[in-house]
């Protein structure tokens, strides 16, 4: 394994671990549709306490999926899209293999 590949592996694993939880996934989805939001806004209607939301946001932040910026007295969280792209890449990769396999199947059955 080259150094850069090992780096990519170390970078991707915590991303999947952080996303492997339905509550955190819901927070990521919320941030992706509604943009940067304060903890207060994220807590409202979530069915969780402010402390619960904060804990999940901290996990996401450790994985580098969200960024915390302070606006006055409020913590405002936004998505770090580069890291989300890492998580998408695996499925895109398998998907590309199926595109290629589909093309080979098409070529094969149409050659007769």
């Amino acid at each position, binding site marked *: 394994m080259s150094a850069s590949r090992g780096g990519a592996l170390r970078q991707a694993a915590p991303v999947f671990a952080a996303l492997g939880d339905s509550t955190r996934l819901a927070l990521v989805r919320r941030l992706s549709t509604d943009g940067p939001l304060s903890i207060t806004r994220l807590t409202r209607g979530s069915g969780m306490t402010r402390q619960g939301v904060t804990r999940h946001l901290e996990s996401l932040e450790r994985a580098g999926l969200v960024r915390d910026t302070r606006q006055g007295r409020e913590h405002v969280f936004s998505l770090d899209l580069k890291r989300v792209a890492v998580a998408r890449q695996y499925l895109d990769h398998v998907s590309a293999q199926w595109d290629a396999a589909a093309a*080979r199947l*098409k070529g*094969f059955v149409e050659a007769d």
Partner: protein
Amino acid sequence: MTTATDHPQTTDRIEKRFEVSAKRSRVWRALADAGEFGTWFGMTLDRAFTPGATVLGHLTLKGYEHVTLEMQIDRMEPEGYFSYRWHPYAVDPKIDYSAEPMTLVEFRLEESAGGTVVMITESGFDKLPSSRRAEAFRMNDGGWTSQSKKLASHVG
């Protein structure tokens, strides 16, 4: 060629749908006959496909000749449905994938005006350990994608 993916938002499944100008019986043979399947997929299979069978495939795609895949044949409904389970992208010979959950690959065929519509679904990715997805991501720069694209443009 292009394939349509029906649900781009999900992380659990991949769906492909495309039309081929060949009769449904012809496409079925390309799926159900292990020799024909291996020809277009790019592997040599060690036995015939029958429901419940475990079939070993040796990849023949350039750069992946070291890879042996295991396919557990699930259901075969002539000219309509073929499914099997496997470990997706299990290409590192140093890793034992056998304890991991498998994904389910399904082929569905439907007659159409232009020939046959083929639907391919692979599902169960959400059950894979996160480290596994990360490991496969690492392989991403290994050239599989570009190799596949070359092949696709050659035969497509």
